[in-house]
């Protein structure tokens, strides 16, 4: 006890000082002998708070920038087309990290292509393709490259009339690459303020690819595909693929599966992808709604005959008016939430339960009822709950509606006001 008291009363100036230095406001208390010492203890000197975050910051891009500019001086500011999408970007940063780790260990390793442009340049220089970080490139990288090619196809749609087999115009892949790599000094000018790093990366990637292909107006998809395969280190690019896939980029690489026929392609061509697909799934598993909205009503039995209704307007009549029970019923879920909680067999003499379309009162005098009528069924009290259940289901299930809903084209009746 004495120890505790000593602890509480012991002044801790350093901790308090730190607390206030950090900008926290501490309202002074009247009795500050006990409370003042309750301050956040100072962390030990050797503990350092480091900000660790999983989100890559701009330093990655600085590394990439310098790296590329060192290797590739005649192509200004080529960070643009390095990062195409998130997955591609992840592999890319992974490669960077591997590179940094290798550098720290002072192990000399092959340069990893940081970007498509760098890879293109290496191909141009007839340099051997560098070894990949871990085996062949992952599917993510391949998907990223496919997306690049899809973007290219969007900007430069393949021309069907173009002589795809004309090999005299373009001789080798290296020639194409050289054409594509003609530098353009102008940088794209942004008119909108830069918001995020990924915005910059995306915009620059698009702008850079536009520039590349503005420099080389020839965009032969077959050659592009060959180029892509070459960069990926895939030697499977041969005449067969070029012939069958002419004009179709990107290519789905399957091992030996036959290509989908036109019929199969049309059968699987659903527009729903990603979020749209999820939404459509959620929609299909949701409880379907009734065609009409319904409402349960309760009516207390009248002791007097309804004949005196207009004459004896009063509290009794008001109490006898039907009252809505609960909320509207839009699906079988709400229906049974109500139905299971209405003890119809316990109702007293002349009490009534109604299940009506939303907006229609269970009164003869409701505007939608004045010209109508009703089928009445006299049912024994033993059978009544089951009978009522089935009639309810026929009603909400639209069976009864379908019976009276004939194809009369708006039969006209004299309208009496």
């Amino acid at each position, binding site marked *: 006890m004495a120890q505790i008291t000593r602890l509480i009363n012991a002044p801790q100036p350093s901790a308090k000082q730190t607390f206030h230095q950090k900008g926290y406001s501490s309202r002074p208390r009247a009795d500050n002998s006990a409370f003042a010492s309750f301050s956040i203890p100072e962390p030990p000197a050797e503990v350092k708070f480091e900000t660790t975050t999983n989100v890559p910051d701009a330093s990655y891009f600085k590394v990439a920038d310098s790296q590329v500019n060192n290797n590739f001086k005649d192509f200004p500011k080529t960070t643009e087309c390095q990062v195409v999408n998130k997955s591609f970007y992840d592999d890319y940063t992974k490669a960077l990290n591997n590179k940094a780790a290798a550098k720290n260990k002072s192990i000399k390793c092959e340069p990893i292509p940081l970007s498509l442009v760098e890879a293109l340049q290496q191909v141009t220089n007839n340099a051997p393709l560098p070894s990949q970080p871990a085996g062949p490139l992952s599917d993510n990288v391949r998907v990223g490259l496919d997306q690049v090619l899809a973007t290219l196809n969007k900007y430069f749609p393949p021309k069907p009339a173009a002589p795809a087999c004309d090999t005299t115009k373009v001789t080798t892949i290296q020639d194409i690459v050289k054409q594509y790599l003609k530098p353009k000094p102008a940088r794209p000018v942004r008119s909108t303020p830069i918001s995020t790093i990924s915005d910059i990366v995306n915009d620059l990637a698009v702008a850079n690819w536009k520039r590349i292909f503005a420099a080389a107006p020839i965009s032969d998809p077959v050659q592009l595909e060959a180029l892509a395969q070459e960069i990926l280190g895939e030697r499977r690019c041969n005449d067969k693929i070029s012939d069958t896939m002419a004009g179709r980029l990107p290519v789905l690489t399957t091992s030996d599966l036959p290509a989908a026929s036109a019929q199969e392609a049309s059968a699987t061509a659903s527009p729903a992808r990603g979020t749209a697909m999820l939404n459509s799934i959620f929609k299909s598993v949701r409880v379907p709604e009734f065609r009409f909205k319904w409402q349960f009503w309760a009516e207390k039995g009248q002791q007097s005959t309804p004949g005196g209704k207009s004459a004896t307007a009063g509290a009794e009549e008001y109490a006898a008016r039907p009252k809505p029970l609960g909320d509207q019923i839009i699906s079988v879920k709400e229906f049974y939430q109500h139905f299971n909680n209405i003890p119809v067999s316990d109702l007293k003499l*002349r009490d009534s339960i109604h299940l009506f379309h939303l907006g229609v009162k269970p009164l003869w005098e409701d505007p939608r009822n004045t010209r109508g009528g009703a089928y009445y069924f006299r049912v024994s009290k033993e059978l009544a709950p089951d009978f009522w259940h089935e009639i309810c289901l026929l009603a909400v299930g639209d069976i009864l509606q379908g019976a009276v809903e004939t194809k009369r084209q708006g039969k006209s009746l004299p*309208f009496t006001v």
Partner: protein
Amino acid sequence: MHFANVYVAFNDDICGISYSVRWNAVQIAIWNRDADNEAGKEKLLATVLEKLSEKLQPKKDAYWYKAHKEHKGFAAPGA
């Protein structure tokens, strides 16, 4: 007031259903909107008798149709 020449489009409809406790039985009603829709009424009854379970089939004299305005207590609006 009575406007004899005003005609409006009027389609039949199910308005609702009722469960009413009477002295020694329960009266269950199916309300429709147009008491003059003979074909609809006929089809409605046929549908109900067809869809109801075997044990719930009503006897011949246990059901009837009645227009609301034929009830004693019916207070015609505007009348």
